[in-house]
């Protein structure tokens, strides 16, 4: 029995997820600086987001609205009176040495998100309860230079980029999720996936895990079966992809169970997920209670959202992703399983956009979930981050349907597009990849193939037309896949008197 199976037999995992979402507002949360990703260090700063003496914050109304919309989409109640609070601690990436956040008066609280997971007993719905959704500002970014590890310890010096400081950050905290058993890793992954799609649907964030606009911390504890008190939890940070969410929980279940089996206690601590090994390593110990000296931010006025306005926002919410998926699966003729695969890959919108351009649902799914998902997983990217657009995919599919590309050629075109060589038409021209359907160009190859396969040729002549594949295959091979297979078949049969 594997370590994991043994762990699950003896212990019940309890999950908790804290997700940070960078909002895609044009300006920062408390000043007018741009939030665009990728600018030169410290170019998107001003006295306020640098925390210069005398500077003051002014809250970004869009940031507040987006947070409320997220709360509504997560079935939360929206506070009629909410305040920002200062979270005080010293760190060089924080210009004011306090973070403007929310404490006991968050904008949204008490919601839930239902997620579907395949279990041995079929598809099951797990309800993940949401404790709170609050709004805060992001910190700057530290780069530790000189050391071997890239960590602060052992670094020669550290550089700070405050471009990120002050970008609106929404924190979504779940309540502890018990009773997921062996499916804990899958429930967590399904939750983050569902949350990502929900946020994308709300158009409030880029939700790109690799750029850090969606970040996840995973809390986990194990309870011995039959016990009523939950175990000590660890918090794992640096979980930066959907796959990592699943792996981090799995690894932490294994690690904690081995510790408990040895009779050791679980240390309450922050751990860091390591992509390369798929395991977590110990970070800061949390034995000393955190002392953030929270108090209401006196430089900002309380938020008292108008009830009618909240109702308006609620009515204008887009369709919930799960409802939308059910509807689309029906429209597109996908099975539940097919649709869930597509959703997990983050491909629903991409497929929808491809279909809008005339591609059939089945083909759109074939390209994105069959072909392109492989490229994505090889490059450790999400589908949406591949350098190919739904327009490109629709064009390739159309060319295949017109007989101008074979499937094999189409794959080459895709690779070239992903390589940044241009759009499909440019790539085809540059690489000379169009299908050869010109008779005169194909005849010599066909004749050679017949000569090389006399037995098959004889059978066809006798009327056993099903053997034609042998010769067509040989032609395709000699032409490097650039021939139009249908045309080849037609010509072979004609040549052999059928």
């Amino acid at each position: 029995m594997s370590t994991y199976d043994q762990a699950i037999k003896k212990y019940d995992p309890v999950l908790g997820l804290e997700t940070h979402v960078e909002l895609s507002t044009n300006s920062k949360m408390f000043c007018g600086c741009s939030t665009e990703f990728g600018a030169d260090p410290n170019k998107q700063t001003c006295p306020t987001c640098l925390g210069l003496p005398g500077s003051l914050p002014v809250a970004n109304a869009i940031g507040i609205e987006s947070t409320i919309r997220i709360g509504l989409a997560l079935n939360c109640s929206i506070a009629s009176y909410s305040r920002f609070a200062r979270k005080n601690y010293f760190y060089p990436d924080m210009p004011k040495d306090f973070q403007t956040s929310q404490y006991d008066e968050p904008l949204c609280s008490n919601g839930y998100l239902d997620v579907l997971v395949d279990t041995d007993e079929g598809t099951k719905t797990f309800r993940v309860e949401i404790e709170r959704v609050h709004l805060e500002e992001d910190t700057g970014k530290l780069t530790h230079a000189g050391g071997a590890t890239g960590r602060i310890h052992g670094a020669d010096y550290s550089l700070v980029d405050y471009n990120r400081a002050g970008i609106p950050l929404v924190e979504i905290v779940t309540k502890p999720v018990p009773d997921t058993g062996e499916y804990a890793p899958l429930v967590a992954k399904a939750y983050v996936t569902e949350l990502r799609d929900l946020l994308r649907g709300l158009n409030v964030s880029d939700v790109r895990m690799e750029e850090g606009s969606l970040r996840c911390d995973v809390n986990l504890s194990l309870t011995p079966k039959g016990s009523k008190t939950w175990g000590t939890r660890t918090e794992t940070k640096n979980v930066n992809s959907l796959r990592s969410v699943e792996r981090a929980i799995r690894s932490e279940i294994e690690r904690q169970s081995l510790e408990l089996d040895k009779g050791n206690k679980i240390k309450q601590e922050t751990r860091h997920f390591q992509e390369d090994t798929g395991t977590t390593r110990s970070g800061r110990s949390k034995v000393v209670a955190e002392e953030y000296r929270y108090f209401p931010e006196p430089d900002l006025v309380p938020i008292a959202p108008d009830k009618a306005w909240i109702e308006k926002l609620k009515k204008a919410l887009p369709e919930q992703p799960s409802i939308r998926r059910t509807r689309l699966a029906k429209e597109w003729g996908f099975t539940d399983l097919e649709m869930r695969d597509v959703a997990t890959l983050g491909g629903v919108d991409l497929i929808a956009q491809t279909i809008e351009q005339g591609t059939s649902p089945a083909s759109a799914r074939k390209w994105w979930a069959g072909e392109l998902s492989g490229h994505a997983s090889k490059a450790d990217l999400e589908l949406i981050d591949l350098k190919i657009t739904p327009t490109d995919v629709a064009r390739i599919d159309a060319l295949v349907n017109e007989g101008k590309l074979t499937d094999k050629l189409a794959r080459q075109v895709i690779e070239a597009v992903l390589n940044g060589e241009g759009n499909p038409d440019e790539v085809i021209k540059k690489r000379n990849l169009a299908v050869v359907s010109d008779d005169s160009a194909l005849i010599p190859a066909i004749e050679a193939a017949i000569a090389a396969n006399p037995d098959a040729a004889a059978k066809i002549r006798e009327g056993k037309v099903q053997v034609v594949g042998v010769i067509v295959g040989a032609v395709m091979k000699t032409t490097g896949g650039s021939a139009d297979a249908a045309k080849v078949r037609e010509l072979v049969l004609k040549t052999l008197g059928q």
Partner: protein
Amino acid sequence: MSDLTKLSAVELSGELSKGSVSAVEVTKAHLDRINSLDKSVQSFLHVDNAGALKQAEEVDKNRKENKKVSALAGVPLALKDVLTQKGIPTTCGSKILEGWIPPYDSTVVKNLKNAGIVILGKTNMDEFAMGSSTENSAYFPTKNPWDLTKIPGGSSGGSSAAVSAFFAPLGIGTDTGGSIRQPAAVTGIVGAKPSYGGVSRFGLVAFASSLDQAGPFARTVLDCAMLHEVMAGHDPLDSTSINQPVPDVVKAAQLQDVKGMKIGIIKELGGDGWQNGVLNRFNESVELLKSMGAQVKEISIPHSLYALATYYLIAPSEASSNLARFDGMRYGLRVDDGNLSAEEVMNKTREKGFGKEVKRRIMIGTYALSSGYYDAYYAQAQKVRALIAQDLTNAFKEVDVLISPTSPTTAWGLGERVNDPMAMYLADLATLPPSLAGIPAMSVPIGLADEDKLPVGLQIIAPFMNDDRMYRVGGAIEASLKTKWNGLLIDQAPALGGAK
């Protein structure tokens, strides 16, 4: 015009608009006086000779070209070193900010510049505005021009000393618990703390965000009102700024009439422990107001007894957070031998850069906000703060303004209270309740104490965003006393270095 420094802002404004004197001449006269006499008073931390003259030239040029200029264009001003002015050092009286040049103007400075007011330089203050004597400045103590062995009040003692020493007709201070009113009182000038949110705090280096408010100093009530009008107004860069028209303080200052006004004397502010000379002048003012037709009655503000305790929890709590950013990482002092960790650099920088009083308040505030103590201290103090505000709101149902002596004593001797923080804190006893309530209050001179012949101030408190009411009372008292004294109280101040 031989004695330009003796003129009020209104008088200077008249001469400037007539063209009988230029802004450059006015500025030069004040700079000359500062450069020859401030070594005895030490009111300025930084005198911007070149910048001030350049601003003055600009005003003269605009006048010459018949461009529209404001009433106070060309009038010089002394600015407390807690407000940022682009390109000019801002230290807040602290070593931790030594060498920092702000890259931006505070809204107050922007408003001053737009009005053509000439900023002569930055004035001394208690470090980060924490103190009542300006002795907590990390640079040097400022002296009271009435008696150079006495304190000029604080924390805005540099500005109050500069205005009372005729270095500038106008000054700007900030008031968190009395830091404009008490210095005004002990130097015999006028000082006002506007309604909280009446003047933008953008660019005011924060001590206690929920209490800090910048305000004007002047030698006359009308000058004070004119500067108040220039400074105030809604600012979208300050979320706590009030989006309402500025009360018509200038008109109120000119009324000189209190007939029919209802005035309340705060019962709790006076009596045992208060200097007799202060109480004598206060009682005379009450009689004066009555004789001018005001209806005066005593009013109780019961929770004002807890104002001091409340203030010394809330203000240090906010300060402990506001002053966290001075960590040596981005600007100002940095103690670093190249081998220290970031945490060690922060610790050593703060240890060296902050003075004793600042450290004391950071410690108190850190303690009061800590988990396990928060409810007993910070949260409790907020509740009492609400009760004090409620008391004052109730009082204003009965009267138009409230009055008290501004401070329990006149100016004390330099060094007398430096080792007794409680004695220092008591100087703010009367000024704290309006600060906690966020309502406007001002101090106007009402005479000299019998014991020491030092100035006494009258505090006038008005309801929120009714700043005009206190100017009405202040203007009327000033007019009446001016007749009695045949001039302003400040005219009785001794000459500085025989140069008067």
